[in-house]
């Protein structure tokens, strides 16, 4: 999952970025509203975390501008102004949830997780597809109730496919959603990760979870849960 974090306090920005990366998110950061708005419009994120009190363009205006351009990924508002008036203003502008400063990182991650799942119509933290299931809270992946150990990049790829199961997703979309903008890579890397994923999840080709559609992309086939 690729996130946009717009926060002007650099210490907080760094700490948040670190804990988000630890939670298997790819994170782009912006330090003011103008920058945040540019990135928010330019790249396709899975969610954005925007501080209300931003220099140049304030957070509420950034959210309004994004929503006005039909950019619909979930937005979590961070605010030190915790009056209900500010909360209502934030959500009214188009944000989906708010978190008042100071907050605990776990709270932020839980809210973010819920927002991303909600945005694709999933409500439960555990996503499952036949024998395969992943827990978006503790990043546990199991096949036939056996835990599988994945690298961060592999987890990100699988989580994205799981959230959009049934959809054919191109390599470029996958690249966009899995790596932040500083990451320079060619699309072969995705192929490598897919191959590794298949090997780890389905070493004997019993399930064929991921299908390749030549020239189009990859698809996580929908398998009924029993």
């Amino acid at each position: 999952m690729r996130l946009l974090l717009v926060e002007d306090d650099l210490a907080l920005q760094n700490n948040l970025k670190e804990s988000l990366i630890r939670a298997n998110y790819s994170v782009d950061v912006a330090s003011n509203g103008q920058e945040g708005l540019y990135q928010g419009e330019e790249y396709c994120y899975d969610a954005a975390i925007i501080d209300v009190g931003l220099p140049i363009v304030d957070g509420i205006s950034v959210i309004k501008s994004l929503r006005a351009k039909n950019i619909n990924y979930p937005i979590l508002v961070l605010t030190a102004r915790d009056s209900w008036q500010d909360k209502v203003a934030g959500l009214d502008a188009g944000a989906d949830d708010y978190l008042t400063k100071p907050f605990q990182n776990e709270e932020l991650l839980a809210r973010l997780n819920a927002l991303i799942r909600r945005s694709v119509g999933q409500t439960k933290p555990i996503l499952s597809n036949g024998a395969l299931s992943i827990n978006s809270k503790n990043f546990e992946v199991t096949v036939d109730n056996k835990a599988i150990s994945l690298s961060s990049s592999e987890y990100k790829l699988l989580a994205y496919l799981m959230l959009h199961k049934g959809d054919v997703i191109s390599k470029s979309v996958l690249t966009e959603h899995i790596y932040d903008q500083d990451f320079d890579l060619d699309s072969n890397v995705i192929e490598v990760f897919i191959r590794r994923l298949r090997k780890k999840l389905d070493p004997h080709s019993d399930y064929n979870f991921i299908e390749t559609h030549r020239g189009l992309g990859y698809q996580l086939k929908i398998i009924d849960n029993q």
Partner: protein
Amino acid sequence: MIKEKFHTLINHPQSNSLKFRLIVSALLMTFIILPIIGFTLSNAFERQIVTSIKKELTAYSYSILAVAEVNDGNLFMPEQLLENQFNVIQSGLYAIITVLNTELNETYRQLWHSHSLLSMGSPTISTLPKVGQSNFSTLIIDDNKHFIFSFSASFNSNNKEFPLSVHIIKNYDDFTGLVNDFEQQLWIWLLILMALLFLVQGIWLGWTLQPLRVLKSEMIQVEQGKLAELQHTYPLELAQVTQQLNLLLRTESQQRKRYKNALSDLAHSLKTPLAVIQSQQELTLSSIEQLQLINNIIVHQLKRAQSAGESAWHTGINVKAVVDKLMATMTKIYFDKDIEFHCVIDSQASFKGDEADLLEILGNIIDNACKASKQHIAISVNQPAKQLTISVADDGAGINTELQTDILNRGTRSDTYKEGHGIGLAIVRDLVDSYQGQLILGNSSTLAGAEFTLIFYK
């Protein structure tokens, strides 16, 4: 007694209005002063007529005396008098000549009377003036009132004094006719004048009081929040007051805004470093606790300071608009709960206070209800006379009595709060207190959960 009644009337709350004063003075003018003028006029007219009748009768008496001749103690009068009214029977104008009966004291003897007095009862003349003097009064002949003018003169006949009295009697009818005519005319015109004055005063009253009426309606609109300030152009006498009022309304809201922004910035600059500390990984549980405590103190004290509190300068806030905003927000925040709101809201209900305060109070209460509820929340807002009642009920577990008293009795010092959600309710309680309102906790009869009822008095 009357004085007391007058005082109670004057001190009656309704009488303490400009309208009442103007109406009273207008009524006084129309229905007391005008009739007094009427009475004075008709009185003066009557006197005028009486004077002119007296003059007329005096002239007649001279003309009679001029034709009277006394010879040897006998009075000779011509057969016909010059003034024809004396010759025509019952013409209304009569003349009598009497002589003082010197033998019988104080009585008189009638010597002559005009033809006009024929076939009429003989009048009894009560007073006879002394020689050279006259007397003017009234008397009754055949049950009819008459004026009588008597003049006594002494004739010299053969060196013997012959004192005569000439009495001219005139029917009252002429006089009554004239006076009645005048009074009739006078009162007709006075009534027309009264009606006209009444009408003019009514219009004048309306015209004079119109700016006050506009001011009142604009003030009501300001109170209800429909207007930010007075917009009408008022007459000079009121303009200064309304301009000052507008200035006050404007500066009050600007100052409140400035103050709020300053506090909000302070909160922001205090809490961002707290957030930085809290976002660090290696925090001990006790330092997290301390951070939470610092945060609670900042939140609570700053919110308390931001509360506008009860003030006469608040414009009304539509409660429904605020509740609608909050429901939209809660629907987003508690998306997973799929909460159903059941609302019975008086769309006219207004909260006389600051919008941010109402948002804070209702935001915290509805947020609590959302946290506690399974799926249903009932919100009702109504505005019976002189108060505003808002109640929020949920279908959660409810609040036990111990906790209810705990919430209501908690000290006002922010550092005595227990950790957690309590701070929201503590803020609500402080805000409600600052508006002299009432917060009642109980259990909902319909939804089985907790019910928070707010009552604000106007």
